[in-house]
């Protein structure tokens, strides 16, 4: 047993660190430091830089455009990216539908969809939740009815992140409602330009438009867009959910936030001293750091298990709960340090064309915005209540 990285892994870390320091555009890095939302065009620019380097899809098999790295290397890579202040790229193509397509899709589907995901030209969104089907995802009702070599889709999806910016949507649809609810679901790829699709924005509590409701009204989808077999979509959906939760710990991003918290505490006064020197704050910071350490080494331990071909499974449920709780307590600490400067509405930072300098000091920028958005993390991707049910059922056999 050895906790430290091997010389090869250390060399790899140095290589990644040097590359990202040079390759990450300064304006994107600066926006991240100010806690701003990185816009689609900038994300795409960064996506293409990574693609050109060949590092866009580390987890994919090499034959499909992956890197062939070990799980440890992928961990190092993700960590270094986040520490350097690189923005997270949307997961929908690279981490969700991409792996579904290369695992369960036909050769034709692989040829058709994987290149666009890799080069960043095609953006995806995820059609899972419905107004009546949240935690109970398998009860979904959006219907796809066979009509010749097409399906006719009717229904609605909700909380669809980025639907207003996406080119394609991957959808769970009901193709059979006679048996068990999990058994009549299919996995369908739908072009967002198809007639009958309407995207309606949902504004969330931080004032952002990130999610939508998507309506399908007699949307005709070619049957060749079906992934795998009809009525077996639940298998692919679960595969995807595990992938979604894998890496949800986002250790690097959390370290980046910790660095911002420390910086703000150092520039904030308390009782005539730096807040960073206050014992109360130091205790909370230390508690947070210990929790982060526990999360990081849990992830590493699970990763090490995967290296020996133990499939990632329900550990992902535990990581989801622990990681989202920690993320929320970190963002709470952040707004508390920001004090009164949590109070101004900070959404203007993202308003294009605004030449007003922000009221909120740069060190505290985006703290409240992210705190509010972060409340969703214990809800989405299977609420933490559902995760605990799964942990109890599967891991504890209760």
């Amino acid at each position, binding site marked *: 047993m050895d906790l430290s990285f091997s010389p090869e892994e250390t060399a790899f870390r140095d290589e990644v660190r040097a590359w990202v320091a040079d390759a990450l555009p300064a304006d994107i890095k600066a926006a991240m430091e100010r806690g701003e939302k990185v816009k689609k065009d900038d994300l795409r620019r960064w996506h293409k830089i990574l693609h050109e380097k060949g590092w866009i899809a580390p987890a994919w098999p090499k034959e499909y455009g992956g890197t062939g790295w070990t799980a440890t290397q992928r961990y190092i890579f993700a960590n270094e990216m986040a520490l350097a202040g690189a923005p997270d790229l949307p997961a929908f193509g690279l981490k969700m539908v991409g792996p579904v397509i290369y695992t369960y899709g036909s050769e034709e589907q692989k040829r058709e969809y994987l290149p666009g995901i890799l080069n960043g030209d095609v953006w995806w969104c995820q059609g899972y939740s419905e107004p009546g089907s*949240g*935690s109970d995802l398998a009860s979904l009702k959006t219907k796809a009815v066979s009509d010749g070599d097409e399906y006719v889709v009717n229904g609605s999806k909700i909380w669809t992140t980025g639907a207003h910016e996406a080119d394609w949507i991957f959808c769970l649809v009901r193709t059979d409602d006679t048996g068990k609810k999990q058994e009549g679901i299919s996995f369908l790829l739908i072009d967002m330009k198809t007639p009958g699709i309407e995207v309606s924005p949902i*504004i969330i509590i931080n004032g952002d438009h990130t999610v939508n409701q998507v309506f399908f009204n007699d949307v005709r989808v070619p049957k060749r867009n079906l992934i795998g077999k009809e009525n077996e979509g639940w298998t692919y959906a679960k595969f995807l959910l595990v992938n979604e939760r894998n890496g949800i710990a986002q250790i690097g991003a959390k370290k980046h936030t910790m660095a911002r918290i420390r910086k703000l505490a150092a520039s904030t006064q308390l009782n005539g001293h730096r807040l960073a020197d206050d014992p109360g704050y130091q205790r909370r910071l230390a508690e947070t750091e210990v929790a982060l350490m526990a999360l990081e080494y849990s992830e590493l331990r699970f990763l090490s298990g995967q290296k020996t071909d133990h499939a990632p499974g329900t550990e992902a449920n535990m990581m989801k709960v622990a990681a989202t709780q920690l993320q929320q307590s970190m963002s709470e600490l952040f707004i508390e340090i920001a004090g009164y400067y949590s109070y*101004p*509405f900070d959404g203007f930072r993202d308003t294009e064309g605004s030449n007003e300098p922000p*009221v909120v000091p740069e060190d505290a920028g985006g703290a409240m915005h992210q705190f509010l958005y972060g409340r969703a993390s214990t809800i989405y991707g299977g609420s933490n209540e559902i995760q605990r049910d799964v942990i109890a059922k599967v891991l504890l056999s209760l």
Partner: protein
Amino acid sequence: MDLSYSDEQTMLRDSAERFVEANCGAENLRKMRNTEEGFSRNYWKQMAELGWLALPFTEEQGGLGGTAVDTMVLMEAFGKGLVLEPYLTTVVMGGAALRAGGSDAQIEELVPALVEGELMFTVAYAEPQARFDLFDVATTARRDGTGWVIDGSKAVVLHGDSADKIIVSARTSGDRRDATGISLFIVDAGAPGLERRPYPTVDGSRAAEIMLGSVRVDADALLGREGEGLPVLERVADEAITALCAEAVGAMKVLLDTTVEYTKTREQFGQPIAKFQVLRHRMADMMMEYEQAKSMALVAALKLDSEDPVERRKAVSGAKVQIGKSGRFVGQQAVQLHGGMGMTDELSVGHYFKRLTMIDILFGNVDHHLKQFSAAA
């Protein structure tokens, strides 16, 4: 001991709840937050007509002689409806400053106009470097002839954009963090040299950064005695905290009721989610938090006028700690139990959650008041 409302208090509560029910709430907030002032002048006029703006002033001052409990009753109702009108800044904070520091002449001149709804007030006490310390004042005022000249800047002045009179803390002697040497001045919002940078706040209210560049005021602008402004400011903060605690209790009640109702109607896995034990226990905890917050808000109101400064400090800071913690739990769990819907701007839940989050920050958060409590005890 009798902790029940008097007939007058019950009437006040009922009339305030009726007003709030008919006029306020999340829908009203979504409409008003895009307006220039962020609240309704019409509602303000109605509040004046109902006598609410006169509540905390004595009868000699032209008021109703209300107690802190009366203000609590009103604020709790306001909390239930996310009331946006500047009651806290004008009546509670401005009123406290005038009652605690104002001369007879100032009270005679200003209180009738305040009570009529003609003059709006705010208190500019916070500074960018000061965090929650009322005594950390870098803004200065120096004598100039018979008057004063004020220089400095004030941070996150609540309703600083719509107030007619801004009560500004400024240092007339001593060092930045001295407890003495702070004076208060009543400054006209339109005074030459006073610049305001207004902005909306996270909870749909409004505030402003205020810059004072050689702002000249007359001798009669001084509120209270020169160099002795801190006790007045502390009084303002304690009255504001007590009022905010009551507002938070009202907001928590709405979230508790809304969440219970939602979980009874939202079905997943073939049954209302209220049937799941984990959610039932969560809501039981929310209710306990609400009840304890309500008790502490009452303690603060009852002890606000205590002769014993330690007793007052422990009651007010203790209430702020409890409200901060309870408000956080109730607000966050209300969002969680509403699922994705709780994250939307459309539903009321998120607005109450944001207001509760902000109330924790205003006039010092949990950490700050734990220290205050501990220092007093």
